[in-house]
């Protein structure tokens, strides 16, 4: 739901139902990074009701477009985080497997030398 004015669409308040700090804080962060935004913030009118109000004021661009762009940026950021995370986990598992092999080979060859890590 958008509360704005018909004449000036560069400032609006978006009311999202069934949401909480999880998405509102993340969207507020990406909105702030956009140079077209002069003001943005979010509030939760009442903690028992799952509703979030996000206020966006821009330098002329319609607030709806800026919010959409911010959500898109957030999606891309999360996708990038997911890729990087998957790669890091695979890398860790691979390097651990190599370490386990090294330890095994040292034990089996009867080496007394300590593991140099």
């Amino acid at each position, binding site marked *: 739901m958008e509360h704005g004015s018909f004449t000036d669409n560069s400032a609006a308040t978006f009311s999202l139902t069934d949401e909480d700090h999880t*998405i509102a804080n993340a969207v507020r962060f990406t909105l702030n*990074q956009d140079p077209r935004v002069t003001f943005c913030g979010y509030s939760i009118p009442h903690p028992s009701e799952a509703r979030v109000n996000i206020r966006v004021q821009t330098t002329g661009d319609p607030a709806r477009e800026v919010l959409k762009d911010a959500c898109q940026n957030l999606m891309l950021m999360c996708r990038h985080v997911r890729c*990087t995370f998957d790669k890091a986990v695979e890398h860790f598992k691979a390097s651990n497997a190599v370490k386990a092999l090294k330890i095994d080979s040292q034990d089996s060859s009867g080496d007394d030398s300590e593991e140099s890590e």
Partner: protein
Amino acid sequence: MAEGVGEEKKKFSIWDLPDVPMGQLPPHLELQRSRVSCNKDAPIHTESIQYSGAYASMGIDNSSRLDRFSNNFRVEVVQLNKDDMEFDMIGIDAAIANSFRGILIAELPTMAIEKVLIANNTSIIQDEVLAHRLGLVPIRVDPRLFEYLSENDQPNEKNTIVFKLHVQCKRGSPRITVKLDALKWLPNGSELVKETRNATSDSSSKPETYTYFGCSQEIIPEFVKNPIIPKYPDIIIAKLGPGQEIELEAHAVKGIGKTHAKWSPVATAWYRMLPELRIDCNCRFLLF
């Protein structure tokens, strides 16, 4: 001071000073922007300066555009065990990290026991307490193989897992402890028969039960390799004295932690910022 009428006054700019770095924030502001300092009574500078135009008057762009983020973001796994994991995220803001934490706790789906059909319970553990304990039991199954069950759906093999528990302590035998390994998986669906009103139903047709399984869950290849069992078979459910019996059937469905904490996949998830210790070299006292 004025030499002539038409001469302009010389403008003095702070950037002309020799020790102010150009294009970057002065060091004390950079410290304020990027570090949370722990003071004697409370931490300061805790809210991150997210606004893109925060340092606009200095000509510095505070926005972190997507390309800069993609280049600088790194993940380093510190440890990865079967049941827990610790990793560092470098180059991300606390807002996003907190959102990940919230999603981990409350919005990832798992399977947990929701409906318990109790046929017989003569133990001292009350029905609802028993059902509550069964609901909190972690089940070792991949929730992505199942669908959500809404109120209008019928429970079938795609959205329900059925377990059975039938324990009896015979008279004269010592007290027994009912652990989770007594909970058996029923891949063919419910075995409790529903009482139908019409007496004209013939006895040759299959009696109607509480679930409508089209096919057995055993034939799905993932379940052939890993049959569905509770994760920890030594959790105590109840204790029975002589002559007491528990007979029940438990149906597990998919849900998220927001609805009830039993569906939360993590014991807990937390994040913290990486601590940085700066020791002043002018310190005159030995630390040890």
